């Protein structure tokens, strides 16, 4: 229904474009000068068609459900129902009217389902009538108004400008959406679990917080010693540390080699090949780590008499490091190439070898940029999910032994939220609280890294 209406409105828009342009041609044929190209008259009318349609559509989308609900529930008012019961009744009759209801059908619900259907159809038909009449009225008004000296280009361009501006707000809206989705659950979580216990507690067993009914949910003693995030944070940074131990030397050295030593031919092939590593989906790395690297390390460890967990932090961290190599190598390559040639020439002129020049002149000059690229790599490592979920343990051990298994923030979020979630359960809220801490940590890293890189670029540009 909505789709048909929408198509119809789009057709109306095209028609008004046609009429606007036609009117412009008519004016032109009377030898009057137009103030804008004829198609602007068309666009002008089309916009007058689109704006009322958009306004009415969005008003309807916002208010229709609330009003229908109020009207249906007005039947039940003064009968001593609680709010929750009323909501349930409403949802039941809605489901029944769609034929998706599977519970016991009472006459009450049946009656409101029928009422719901009739209200919906009234709402639909009044929407059609109102939208169409509003469009026709506004287009007719605008059509009357355009004459030889009316301005059409300026309003059309202003409108376009407004559309462009709105689109650019999408980035801000996304950030707001992220904060919004995280913050309420996080606040609710900290109402039950004290912030202190979360940040400094050393036991993380969310499975213990299994809530059977809502009376238990608010009993704080039940959650003592279940949501201490220290093992999680420690595991996250530990795995990230292992990853960086692999990624920094290999990434940095290959970046230096590509920038300073490699011939154009080697560079031409090696650089895209290394960058393939960045394009491989993380779930593939996870599979590789879980199926190949984990068992391999375990066997290697056993042959040397060491006890290695099949889901060791080393396997997850190592594979994660491989994933991060291309980020560090291509960023540091860029950074090193943008160091001005004069610095190199100066160093060669006093007799330094190439490696001495790199170590003593270029590296210090490029250091801020390299630090920035490493920080971006760290932020990637902390936020990486699938490798850890598949290759590292899911139990949160507080350990610094790379051969044991640990868990990370991202892995815990997935473990908690996979399957069905009950909002309002502290376990679910804990996942959002972890998400919030992840967001804040990566946000700080990103801001610092981006600022450092930007400062560095400005210095040599």
């Amino acid at each position: 229904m909505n789709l048909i209406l929408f198509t119809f409105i789009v057709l109306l828009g095209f028609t008004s474009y046609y009429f606007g342009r036609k009117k412009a041609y008519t004016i032109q044929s009377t030898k009057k000068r137009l103030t804008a190209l004829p198609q602007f008259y068309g666009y002008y009318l089309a916009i007058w068609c689109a704006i009322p349609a958009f306004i009415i559509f969005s008003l309807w989308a916002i208010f229709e459900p609330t009003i229908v609900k109020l009207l249906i529930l007005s039947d039940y008012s003064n009968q001593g129902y609680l709010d929750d019961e009323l909501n349930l009744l409403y949802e039941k009759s809605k489901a029944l009217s769609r034929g998706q209801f599977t519970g016991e059908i009472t006459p009450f619900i049946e009656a409101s389902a029928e009422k719901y259907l009739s209200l919906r159809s009234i709402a639909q038909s009044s929407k059609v009538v109102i939208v169409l009449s509003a469009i026709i009225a506004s287009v007719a008004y605008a059509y009357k108004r355009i004459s030889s000296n009316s301005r059409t280009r300026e309003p059309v361009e202003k409108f376009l400008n407004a559309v462009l501006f709105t689109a650019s707000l999408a980035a801000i809206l996304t950030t707001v959406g992220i904060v919004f989705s995280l913050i309420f659950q996080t606040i609710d979580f900290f109402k039950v679990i004290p912030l202190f216990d979360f940040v400094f507690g050393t036991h993380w067993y969310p499975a213990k917080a299994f809530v059977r009914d809502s009376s238990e949910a608010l009993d704080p003693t039940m959650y003592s010693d279940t949501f201490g995030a220290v093992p999680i944070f420690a595991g996250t940074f530990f795995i990230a540390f292992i990853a960086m131990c692999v990624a920094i030397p290999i990434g940095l050295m290959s970046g230096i080699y590509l920038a300073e030593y490699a011939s154009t031919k080697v560079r031409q092939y090696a650089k895209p090949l290394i960058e393939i590593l960045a394009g491989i989906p993380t779930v593939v790395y996870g599979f590789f780590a879980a199926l190949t690297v984990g068992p391999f390390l375990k066997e290697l460890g056993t042959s040397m008499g060491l006890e290695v967990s099949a889901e060791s932090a080393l396997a997850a961290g190592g594979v994660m490091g491989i994933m991060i190599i291309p980020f560090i190598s291509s960023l540091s390559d860029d950074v090193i190439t943008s160091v001005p040639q004069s610095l190199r020439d100066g160093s060669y002129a006093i007799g330094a070898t190439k490696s001495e020049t790199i170590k003593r002149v270029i590296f210090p000059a490029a250091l801020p940029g390299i630090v920035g690229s490493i920080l971006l790599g760290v932020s990637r490592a902390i936020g990486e999910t699938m490798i850890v979920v598949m290759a590292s343990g899911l139990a949160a051990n507080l350990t610094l032994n790379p051969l044991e298994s640990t868990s990370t923030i991202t892995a815990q979020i997935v473990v908690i939220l996979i399957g069905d979630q009950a909002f309002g359960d502290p376990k679910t809220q804990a996942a959002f609280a972890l998400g919030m801490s992840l967001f804040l940590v990566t946000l700080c890293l990103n801001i610092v890294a981006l600022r450092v890189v930007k400062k560095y670029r400005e210095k040599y540009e």
Partner: protein
Amino acid sequence: MNKNKEQLLNKRYKAEQRFRLYGLSAIFMALLFLTIFIFKIFSTGYSAFQKTWLIVPVTFDAELMMLDQNPSKEDLQDADYYDIALKSMADLDPNANEDQENELKRMVSYFFEKEIKNELLNDPNLIGKTKEVYLTASDDLDQVFKGNYPRDLPEDQRRVSDYQLKIFDQLVTNGKVESKFNISFFTNADSREAELAGIASSFMGSIFSILVCLMIAFPVAVLAAIYLEEFAPKNRFTDFIEVNINNLAAVPSIVFGLLGLGVLLAIFHLPRSTPLVGGITLSLMTLPTIIIAARASLKAVPPSIREAALAMGASRMQTTMHHTVPLSMPGTLSGTIIGLAQALGETAPLILIGMVAFVNTIPGSPMDPAASLPVQIYIWAESAERGFVEKVSACIMVLLGFLIIMNLFAQIIRHKFEKKWS
């Protein structure tokens, strides 16, 4: 003194060579990882494209199927095939006792009844006759036949019994086991049985998600890029937008999953597990990537183009829409494709919005529950059955194939259509 100098020089040259070697070996290591990686995936995955069939003689006994004389098409549809299916498996070994008959039945997939039915529906004249029918082998036998399954384990540690192996070997020597290209891997939806599981449902799920993502992210991102690059005044607010975009590009993907869960599912009540929600979540993630690419390619259009248009009397909007934007399109499009390729490989946010549900139907629209290719990889990788390991690798090969095609496409657009200024 002179000797000392020479020694020092030698030392310095050696250090130079060592440093160079470090660099070379770093590159070598990175490429080695890549090779091991691809080799491992291909060597475990290529066998999934073959499927093992048992050729079993089936007697279409009208009595066992409870059919009358001259059955109609509907009768054939509703007939009972289980008994003849069971009988034809049991007939493989005439001396089998009841337990052994059960084991014989488990040598083929539970789909065998349907396969026999399809045979008869294709040729109704078969009633009363015997024909050799291709039946899908169970995944354990499939693995045995492909050599992926150790036969020398003690019997209680493997899923195939000695008896099944004996019968299977007889079939092999009689040439009644055949390996063919595995079409069902591409046409079947997911299944709990490895031998029947296919990627059709997750593939459609991926396609729908990517389409939704493209339809939302591309227009919004291009419009935003045009505003920021061509019209935005330089002030605090636009700086703030820029900081936001750069940050969003580096926010971990799982946070977008939380956004999808907390806003799209919990507040807007969009249907769970659907490519619609997945696509919207992915579009928020790809938005900054496309904006950054589009801005870069708008920036690359030389000012002379704009100046020429303005000098001819075009307004700023006309200059942008008629000249700058079309010239920047190749770069924008290739950036978009790269962003979509990233979105195609994304797993974590889709898991959070419930796209890991077991779906054994092929979705027909973005509003139907579905998985996606990377999520399918995750689901299969988590299952214990051996038959899924090669499926995972094969699914990875399909996914990597798509990513390579998309990236090549992006390269081609960039090189073929982008104008080189200067």
